[in-house]
């Protein structure tokens, strides 16, 4: 029984466009353990969604440059689409961020599901749909939605239907890509906890929960991975990241939002000025240095990830000097 569902080794994935390479994912390494939820945080454009598409769609202009992505021990980057298709939905699945128009407007939900699973050699019979309805019930949806068209559903409903569909074959690994962003706060919580619930009931194995909203991660993620400009800034157990961030960017992120569960200090939140750099043909060096208050000469070299504590790594030249301003 392998411990790691997913092992990503120095993954590089660029957008090849007329003007050059957009280095959206540039040397990313991490694992996801069985039954764990990895939260991936970062501003929009930091490459977290690209990471998802690299696993799932692998379609030009996004191109895999180098590195491995071992899903259940097999490198899906080298895998033929034909073979990979068999793994889809069964072993790897996704809850996309575009929930609102993820359905063909002219097909009933039921038809869609039926067509979909048939592709995986499963006959959409009564028995199967009984299961579907039970899942729907689990997300507080009435079975009747099966006979509706997507446009008859609200945003929240669609989101939940999609969660049911994407997990319908109990995938070993599922990617939840910004699934909360389009929703209002209450349903955000609901959807997020729902994902945890699915995991707890072992409907899904592990999950990669992509969001720009750390506060949600804090509730459901076992570990958090902070990305910046296509690279991992810091990765570690949730508490570690939230209470003891090392990377200036992480710190900025944490302090830029109302600090959940961390006792509040009366001090200015150092919001982050500026925007992430253009990833088009970007060169070496710490990519945060353009915004980093502590940037120095050394930062023009690409930082290597260093171990902070067990399972807690960061990629910053100066994390030791800066120390941690969160703990007393």
């Amino acid at each position, binding site marked *: 029984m392998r411990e790691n569902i997913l092992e990503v080794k120095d993954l590089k994935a660029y957008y090849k466009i*007329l*003007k050059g390479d957009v280095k959206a994912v540039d040397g990313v390494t991490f694992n996801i353990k069985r039954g764990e939820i990895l939260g991936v945080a970062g501003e929009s454009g930091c490459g977290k969604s690209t990471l998802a598409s690299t696993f799932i769609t692998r379609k*030009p*202009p996004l191109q895999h440059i180098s590195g491995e992505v071992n899903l259940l021990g097999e490198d899906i980057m080298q895998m033929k689409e034909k073979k990979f298709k068999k793994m889809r939905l069964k072993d790897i699945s996704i809850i996309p961020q575009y929930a*609102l*128009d993820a359905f063909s*407007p002219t097909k009933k939900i039921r038809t869609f599901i039926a067509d979909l699973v048939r592709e995986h050699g499963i006959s959409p019979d009564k028995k199967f749909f009984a299961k579907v309805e039970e899942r729907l019930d689990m997300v507080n949806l009435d079975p009747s939605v099966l006979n509706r068209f997507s*446009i008859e559903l609200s*945003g929240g409903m669609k989101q939940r239907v999609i969660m049911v569909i994407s997990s319908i074959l109990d995938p070993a690994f599922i990617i939840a890509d910004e699934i909360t962003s389009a929703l209002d706060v209450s349903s955000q919580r609901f959807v997020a906890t729902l994902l945890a619930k699915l995991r707890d009931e072992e409907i899904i194995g592990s999950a990669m929960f992509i969001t720009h909203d750390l506060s949600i991660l804090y509730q459901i993620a076992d570990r958090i991975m902070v990305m910046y400009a296509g690279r991992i800034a810091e990765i570690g157990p949730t508490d570690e990241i939230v209470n003891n961030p090392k990377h200036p960017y992480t710190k900025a992120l944490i302090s830029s939002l109302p600090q959940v569960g961390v006792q509040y200090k009366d001090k200015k939140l150092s919001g982050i000025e500026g925007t992430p750099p253009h990833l088009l043909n970007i060169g070496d060096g710490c990519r945060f240095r353009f915004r980093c208050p502590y940037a120095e000469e050394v930062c023009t070299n690409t930082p290597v990830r260093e171990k902070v504590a067990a399972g807690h790594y960061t990629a910053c030249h100066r994390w030791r000097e800066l120390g941690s301003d969160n703990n007393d």
Partner: protein
Amino acid sequence: MLLENFWKNHENLYYVVKNKKVMIGISIVVFMFLLAVIGPMLTSYDYDEFVSNGFQAPSADHWFGTTFMGKDVFTRVTLGLRTSLLVGLIAGVISTFVGCIIGFLAGYYGGVIDEILMAMTNIFIVIPSLALLIIISAYLPGDRGILIMSLIISVTAWPWTARAVRSQTLAIRSQDYVNLSRISSISVLQIIKEDIAANMLSYVFMVFILQFKGAILAAVGLEFLGLGPTQGISLGLVLQNALNWNAIQLGIWWWAILPGLILTIFVTALYFINTGLDEVFNPRLREM
């Protein structure tokens, strides 16, 4: 570096230049326009002048040969092209504009306004445009000039644009983001402008191309039936003469085939541009 910046600021333009379809199309269109403008000046002949014996195949002094009665085909074609382009351009613009406005409004408001506008549109659609054209042109007293032609044509050309634009609008409109903006009481014009129009830009452009095409073809058709401009020359007239003077049976292909070929190539070029720009306007199309 400077160029780099320039492209950064004019991204679409960059893709326009990079897009083969567009460039091919544009170059053909430009060539045709030049042909229409300076072509007639290249020959010393008048389009209606008997310059030599008939039946002359294309040669050095008659590039497109001569007609049955010995008129210079090249002069006639280039002058005719001029007329047709003008008519097409004017009529195309008018009918696209009218059609889009009506389509947008009908599609956006639905209900009574939709019914009224669509009823109007339907009437225009079902009245076989050609017949209507024939009647109008036959009814108009006096001579038919280029402008009159264009107007006549646009009268019958706008409806299907309206219909198409409407159904598009309907579809887009029932998508949530429009509903959102509708709830959030943004002015109609803005919605039409930002949500709907923005989402249909390429579509509208396509519509224009089609209208331009449609107008030219309609004009040529009328001319072919003998209802074109009563003075001067036009591509349709050239072809009509060719047909009436047995050019086909007598094998005067340069008279019967060339003019239409030129026209067809021109319109084809329009399509190229249109599809190319379509790809430019829609990055996702570009990617695939």
